[in-house]
């Protein structure tokens, strides 16, 4: 029986108990530690939930998570674990708010963690994500490679490297990694990548199906609302690419129902309504998008909608704001270059060409070459005399 088996075990419990008693006595005598074990006299009802949590995901708002880790980091000079977690919280906050400065703050937090422990792989990978978000893809690849040198099988490092390779134009290599990882982990994040590969290969219907499967898989876990919304937005995006606007609207609306501040979904709805000729609905969505995140391209499109509606004064004002924002953004955030190149294509083709050339220096994906070609064509069109000009 139980006791007889225990009795046969070599070091008996009394020896451990004596040892423990001695150790605890020594500690109590010598060390003053924060907090002491004890019991409280007052009873209290258990709380079903701490205050302020999202009831669906059971997670605190991201601002609270940022505060939580920042306080811990401040309290402990050597604490690289909290600084790493602060970096991840800042990354999430930046993604949810589209605040590009947030990626720089996340980068600083990860760098601070690595100052304290340069081998801490989560901080290296977090830093990789932060620089990837700022379109420094070669740096992201180098950080992932550094982690893989020490731990070749780390799937998160392989994924970060593949994501960077994808942007750098090494798409076959990236797709091979996605395929391999998806075979062992058929998860929503992996299916999202397979959908991206399918879309890039021109298989829009396949991309839609993979993205829909990602929703099913993701629904099994309590994700942040922004992540739940992302999976629906992703389907909407591929449906729009597949020229299935009615279905795209349905999925984009589902994303907005979960996370009303999902900028991608709100803007997509605006664009779909614009294409359908529903100017009022498009204007409404763009106004909402601008409340979430001001950006030159958003103001520019809103200006176009207002002009189509006959509100030329409003359109001019929006265009003025768009140009002002473009000037503010152009050197500050390299990750905006591609959007700004698109923005300037119809406004200032020379500037669009310069931006497209710069964009190509940081990522060499097919879209970069395609944008460059369009910018060159726009510049050439400027130089080509029109029939009216000849006249």
């Amino acid at each position, binding site marked *: 029986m139980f*006791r007889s088996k225990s009795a046969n075990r070599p070091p008996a419990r009394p020896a451990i108990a004596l040892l423990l008693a001695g150790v605890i006595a020594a500690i109590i005598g010598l060390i003053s*530690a924060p907090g002491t*074990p*004890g019991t409280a006299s007052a009873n209290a009802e258990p709380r079903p939930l*701490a205050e302020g*949590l999202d009831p669906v995901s059971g997670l605190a708002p991201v601002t609270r998570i940022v505060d*939580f880790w920042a306080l811990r980091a401040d309290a402990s000079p050597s604490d690289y674990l909290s600084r*790493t977690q602060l*970096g991840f919280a800042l990354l999430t906050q930046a993604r949810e708010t589209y605040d590009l400065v947030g990626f720089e703050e996340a980068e600083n937090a990860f760098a601070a963690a690595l100052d304290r422990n340069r081998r801490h792989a989560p901080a290296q990978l977090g830093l990789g994500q932060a620089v990837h978000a700022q379109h420094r893809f070669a740096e992201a690849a180098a950080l992932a490679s550094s982690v893989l040198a020490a731990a070749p099988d780390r799937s998160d490092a392989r994924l970060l490297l593949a994501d960077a390779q994808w942007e750098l134009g090494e798409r076959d290599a990236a797709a091979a990694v996605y395929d391999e990882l998806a075979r062992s982990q058929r998860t929503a994040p992996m299916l999202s990548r397979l959908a991206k590969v399918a879309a890039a290969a021109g298989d829009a219907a396949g991309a839609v199906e993979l993205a829909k499967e990602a929703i099913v898989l993701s629904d099994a876990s309590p994700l942040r609302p922004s992540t739940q919304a992302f999976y629906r937005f992703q389907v909407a995006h591929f449906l729009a690419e597949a020229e299935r606007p009615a279905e795209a609207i349905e999925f984009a609306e589902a994303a907005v129902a979960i996370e009303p501040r999902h900028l991608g979904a709100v803007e997509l709805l605006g664009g779909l309504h614009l294409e359908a000729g529903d100017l009022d609905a498009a204007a409404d969505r763009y106004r909402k998008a601008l409340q979430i995140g001001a950006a030159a391209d958003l103001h520019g499109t809103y200006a176009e909608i207002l002009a189509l509606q006959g509100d030329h004064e409003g359109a001019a004002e929006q265009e003025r704001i768009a140009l002002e924002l473009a000037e503010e953004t152009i050197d500050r955030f390299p990750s905006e270059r591609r*959007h700004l190149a698109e923005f300037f294509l119809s406004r200032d083709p020379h500037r669009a060409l310069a931006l497209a050339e710069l964009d190509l220096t940081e990522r060499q994906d097919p879209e970069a070459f395609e944008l460059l070609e369009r910018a060159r064509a726009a510049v050439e069109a400027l130089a080509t005399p029109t029939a009216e000009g000849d006249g």
Partner: protein
Amino acid sequence: MKPFKRTLALALGLAGLLAGLAIGAAPSPAADHLEAPLAQLDGRTDLNDLYVFESPDNPDHTVLIMTVNPLAGIASPTTFDEDALYRFAIDTDADGKRNRSIVVRFEEPADDGAQAFRVSGAGGSGSGTTGEIIDLGSSGHAVAGTFDDPFFFDLQAFQDQVKAAGGERTFCDDEAADFLAGTNVSAIVLEVPTNRLVPNGETALGVWAETWNDGRLDRVGRPGIATVLIDDGSEDGFNSRSPEKDLETFGPQVEANLLALSGLDGSGYTEEEARGITELLLPDVLTYDTAEAAEYLNGRGLTDDVIDLSLTVVTGGLGANESPVLTSDCVDGNDVDFLDEFPYLAQAHEL
């Protein structure tokens, strides 16, 4: 259509899909928190700790507590998985096999996050909603919900000094601190008549907690076995098996790790000593003789400083020369007081 911000939203969203569930990478394993890749996928089924002790209210009752959702609300949800089964497995004949069990199942969270749940098995049965104390019959009761994490531990010093993670912290340095201070977990707390757990006239039992969903996802008996003594990369395999074959399957790596950790100062365990301690620690079942005072390793109380004992054991304290490399993390207790009556755990911290 012009692909302005939505392509940015797509790229940013996609690039963020590395960790999946919450924010960031897993902070690092502690006790049994976040110890294995599979466990890290979903905090709701990631077992942190198991406590088994005599009820302070009633000496004929035993309290069983399992915790999940490490850093609940921050790195994990505060809900339980409605598709999973949470089980206290009870071994009454010391063979590492389950003879009795208490099973807890949850329903989907309501709009306010509360979940209906049902307890069944050896401890009695009852149902209710998270946050409410429910009756299990025969004066037993249960509660499930969010509480302060009762575990206390200097996680970073452990990472740096024991796991050689690369930082400069050591136990008991100027920054000694409970990494889990101010954090919450989700807990299932039961208090049941002891005679429902063991056969008539018997007093000894072994307990482990486990989570299931199409197979065993995680299990824990004694604190830190999977985190400290099971090789990196083997944790999922360890968690997926019943404890009965622990010694046969994982004994060699536990023995090797004991030799390595105790030998950090050049005078470690002998192979015979390491084998003997391995046989004490495996199978990973929390043994408890209800006829004797509950104090880890006999059961585990909320205030037991299991880290100090574990450090002592794994770094050479039970050898002939009784010279452990480490004896304490200098974190001697929880950051907040425990309650002196059911459910014993301290209230959740407001986040």
